């Protein structure tokens, strides 16, 4: 167990990351997570901090085409990457992503706190092609918790978009 607790840092690192199609240059301490960089440095507060331990999925973003828990990613390790957050799901003219529209149609949320993570996870799931049956949607969405229990409606919303 390394226990060298001598002070070190801040040593800010230059971290260019493309966020929702826009290249952003950030100066970050090495211990800044991607979630904190998005929320605190870029002001993109759509991605939510739920548990901050990779257990709830509220921070889910799409990193280089893959859904990940942004709270467990050190931003400095993703220099040059592309991130898609809930703010980047709608078209530039504001037209909602089909899954966002389906969430509204199916009333797939109550408090809405987990919704950005559910949407990013769901969009990635649709691209992965693991949404062929309700069982499959449930299994492949297991990383996104919903304390309000909107699960049946979330499964229905994803299922509807998948079946189109």
């Amino acid at each position, binding site marked *: *167990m*390394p*226990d*060298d*607790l*001598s*002070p*070190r*840092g*801040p*040593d800010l*690192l230059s971290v260019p990351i493309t966020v929702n199609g826009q290249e952003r240059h950030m100066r970050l*301490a*090495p*211990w800044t*997570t991607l979630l904190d960089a998005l929320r605190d440095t870029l002001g993109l507060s759509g991605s939510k901090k739920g548990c*901050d*331990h*990779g257990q709830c*999925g509220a921070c*889910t973003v799409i990193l280089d085409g*893959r*859904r*990940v*828990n942004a709270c*467990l*990613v*050190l931003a*400095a*390790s*993703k220099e040059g990457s592309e991130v898609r957050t809930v703010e980047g799901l709608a078209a530039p003219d504001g037209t909602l992503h089909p899954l966002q529209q389906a969430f509204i149609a199916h009333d797939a949320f109550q408090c809405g706190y987990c919704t950005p993570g559910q949407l990013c*996870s769901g969009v*990635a*799931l649709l691209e*992965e092609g*693991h949404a062929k*049956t309700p*069982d*499959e949607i*449930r*299994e*492949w969405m*297991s*990383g*996104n918790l919903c304390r309000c229990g909107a699960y049946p409606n979330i499964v229905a919303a994803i299922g509807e978009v998948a079946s189109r």
Partner: protein
Amino acid sequence: MRPFTFSRPEAPALAIAGKDAASRFLAGGTNLVDLMKYDVERPAAVLDLGRIAGLREVTQAGGTLRIGALVTNADAAAHPLVLAHHPLLADAILAGATPQLRNMATTGGNLLQRTRCHYFYDRQTACNKREPGTGCPAIGGVNRIHAILGASESCIATHPSDMCVALAALEAVVVAQGPEGERRIPMAEFHRLPGNEPQRDTTLGERELITAVEIPAWDYGAHRTYLKLRDRLSYAFALVSVAAAVTLEGGRIAKARIALGGVAHKPWRVAEAETMLQGQAPGEDAFAAAASLILRGAQGQGHNDFKIELARRAIPRALHQAAHATPQSHVEKRIA
């Protein structure tokens, strides 16, 4: 998280040269970053392996399947070579964690996962694994998830990985590079029992870097299963899991390999049970006898006593699934 210095070595040799006791290699980060947030891991330096080339390939040569250390769990489970030659590994990986975590977690990192013992994670409590010599509050404490096999007086933690259980059953070899060159470590010798040094999860050296995992050829096809029993239908660590594969010849078992997860400080494999099954007709008597051999010496800690009976039933069920070529589905949860 405590401050640390951060670097991105571009070759294994540079990573190894920069490694010392106070630094940590960063791969997927799913476990390390979490442990740093809990102040359980306090590295002075983090060496990010992300820029190292050549560790992200899945290849096959001479029958041996080789998976690079930085291949993500998601990519390994979906890789055509893995699905064609070692579907048991894909089954086990897909039984673990979530799509998000599997997209981040790597083969090498999964091998080095730390236990999910509540006391290990809680700095307010003693823990021989976290701080050697302070004691083990899990013994006589809350120990529903703890070990029933191979535990010691200083630690009753379990290894949490699903992937490693399949790798153990498939007799994989961990390839590691260190200051003295390359070393190949059989899975059976990679993870260790706690003994009186529970702080050491594996036999990997401080300055060794895992570069790949190799799995020898064995064509078991659909005669395999990864049966994982847990508190929820998805996204929970195993209470008991069984990786099993068999090959049959003339209606008798020619070869059987069985490893258990969730029950010990390492994937639990008992060669005697596998040898005993050889030449036997697959059936409940033989399977029950195998379970008895595998669970010989099993001891509960109170809350986890149920695991002994759970494992005693899970092993024959898994062997039944393997013998009948009906692998457990991780989407449809019904247990065949």
